[in-house]
């Protein structure tokens, strides 16, 4: 990055993304993303399949390498701010037949602050249990995770993020495949987080509920199509730009780069 990149990131901004480009196998999946999240807001990331929504989150958390660009949390890189950033991965990303109880999984949210080589303390367990209670799952604390329904598993993941007690949360499709009761519980939880001035970035699939759930929206299709307050940005025209008509030229360019990579 250039020397002036630090000045592009505002220390008061919970998440600022500058010129972020990510490539898989040399094929770019995100181009030049620029975004500054307003504090204490619920931000929906919306776009078609393969638009790079999950990749955006993973690049923010250093889980996939960025080809270029930078991400700052309150002006500092992720390495230094890990403790104030919570993460809810996609539910399907793990094997739920793992030998663990709901409480075990939620306790994993405290691993970042437990000293090396030591087991979780009673305090960690109590905090985990309290977060399970917050998502209405206290009765299932001892249950093996494969015996939970999809919605219950999603709540366990949310509780695991809550126990991190972060300032900024990234959630990858928390509403995917959950029952109505869980959906309601998640929405309630999001409102609670917002009331406590937390910033939440949520990858979302269901266009019907975007206006109801999110203050801000990021319309994404390999690059940012539009970003801003939901009532201004979430328009038919912008949706048409995001979903309608593939970006043939961008696709072709990505293809050419991938091909070029192999011919080198």
């Amino acid at each position, binding site marked *: 990055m250039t020397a002036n990149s630090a000045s592009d990131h505002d220390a008061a901004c919970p998440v600022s993304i500058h010129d972020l480009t990510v490539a898989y196998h040399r094929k770019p999946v995100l181009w030049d993303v620029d975004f500054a999240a307003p504090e204490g807001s619920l931000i929906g990331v919306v776009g078609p399949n393969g638009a790079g929504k999950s990749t955006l989150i993973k690049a923010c958390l250093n*889980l996939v390498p960025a080809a270029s660009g930078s991400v700052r949390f309150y002006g500092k890189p992720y390495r230094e701010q*890990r403790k104030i950033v919570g993460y809810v*991965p996609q539910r399907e990303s793990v094997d739920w037949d*793992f030998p663990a109880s709901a409480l075990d999984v939620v306790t994993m949210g405290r691993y*970042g602050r437990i000293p090396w080589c030591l*087991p979780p303390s009673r305090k960690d367990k109590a905090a985990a249990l309290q977060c399970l209670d917050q998502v209405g799952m206290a009765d299932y604390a001892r249950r093996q995770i494969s015996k939970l329904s999809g919605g219950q598993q999603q709540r366990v993941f949310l509780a695991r993020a809550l126990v991190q007690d972060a300032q900024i949360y990234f959630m990858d499709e928390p509403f995917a495949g959950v029952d109505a009761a869980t959906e309601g519980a998640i929405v309630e939880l999001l409102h609670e987080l917002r009331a406590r001035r937390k910033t939440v970035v949520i990858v979302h699939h269901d266009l019907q509920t975007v206006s109801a759930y999110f203050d801000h929206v990021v319309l994404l299709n390999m690059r940012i199509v539009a970003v801003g307050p939901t009532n201004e940005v979430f328009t038919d025209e912008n949706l048409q730009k995001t979903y309608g008509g593939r970006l043939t030229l961008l696709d072709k360019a990505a293809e050419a780069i991938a091909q070029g990579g192999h011919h080198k």
Partner: protein
Amino acid sequence: MIAMRGIPWALVAMLIPFSNAMAQSQPGTHRSITDTAVHWPGWDQVSQALLLRDYNTRVVVIGATLLGLAAGVIGTFAYLRKRALMGDALSHATLPGIALVFLILGAKNMPLLLLGAAVSGILGVLAVIGLRTIPRIKEDAAIGIVLSVFFGLGMVLFGLVQQLKTGNEAGIQSFIYGKAAAMLHRDAWLIGGVAVAVVAACTLFYKDFRILCFDEEFAGSQGCPVVVMDLAMMALVVLTTVVGLQAVGLILVVSLLIIPPAAARFWTDDLGIMTLVAGASGAASAWFGATLSAVMPRLPTGAIIVLCAGVMFFVSMMAAPRRGVIAGIWRGWSLSRRIGLQHVLRAFAEHEERYAEGVGITMQQLLAARSWSPVSLQRSLQRAIRRGEVTRGGDGGFRLTSAGRVEAARILRNHRLWELYLIRHADIAPSHVDRDADDVEHVLSEPIVRELERALDEAVAIPPSPHAEGGGV
């Protein structure tokens, strides 16, 4: 130390008796017990082997047992990380290294042989990882390619060793098929050291290994050094495999990494307990295999150990209390028995509802009540009679007892509540609800029934059938 629930500290304790036994052993002659002729063992030999009286037997049995323990423990994490087959690629890939060291030295130098094995094994793992990043090559293909090519290369080099006729090809053979009897006390100490390292690492890094196995991405976001931990785990698998080569052989050593954890998974849903059980069953298999082959020297140790682990796996799969096959069959069978009984009682209740309380029902009427075979009806009816819920009258008809009437009313009510719920809240046509209700009503628990009552405002009475007159059961 803080109370450490679920953490395999107990594994450390399991090591202590072995280290004592080894410390007391006298440095005796390094005679191979394979020299004895084939014969069935007498009681003397069996007790000798069991009581570890003979020095060589002691070395072999203790070494093999520690190997089984270490493999079971680290195998648990490799298994949950879905890396078990990687161990197979690794063990097969050790052969070129072993053969190359033989070729260069022309003699059996154990430390260098193991080093060669480790180096070429690691190269094999790196090759798998490298192949995986190439588009269109999936992990299974990568493992298959590396495993067979490295093994093939090893066999070619092995052929060259045989051409040299240095008289050492027997040594290399034991690496392929395993010969615990060839174990020296130095080798046993090496295995012991690896076992201590494995148990210590899995205890200290329990948290990191666990989160890495369950959710790698979240582990990364928590600041767990994912790459370092992954390498540490793989290094422990490499160590265990390499020191186990001589005893079990490179073809079969992977079984000690896979089978004990797979068996242990049936018994528990707790990772700590699973690790303990896997370590213990690995140790038990290896102990049994080594003891048996000490008594009957011509039996291949590695194969016996694997068969023993296989038996333990089979027993676990069949007989484990909740996850086992027999438990599953039993659950299904007792559910269908309960359903049959409830169908009979409901038929009685509906019959009494139509006519009057205490009216008997004949076999013909019962058979017409629903589509069931005479055999299954007879069986369920006999069960109801045995339970004192139905009596047989003198006229050949059947009647509910007073206890049976209470139970039958409860069943009928659950059925009707569920039917109503489906019609009112799930928009299912009345002509279809009966069969749907049938599937669910038998598993309705008390809290669900209470909830149904709330949803339907039906607190006491049995709701009338939603079906048209004569629609029946």
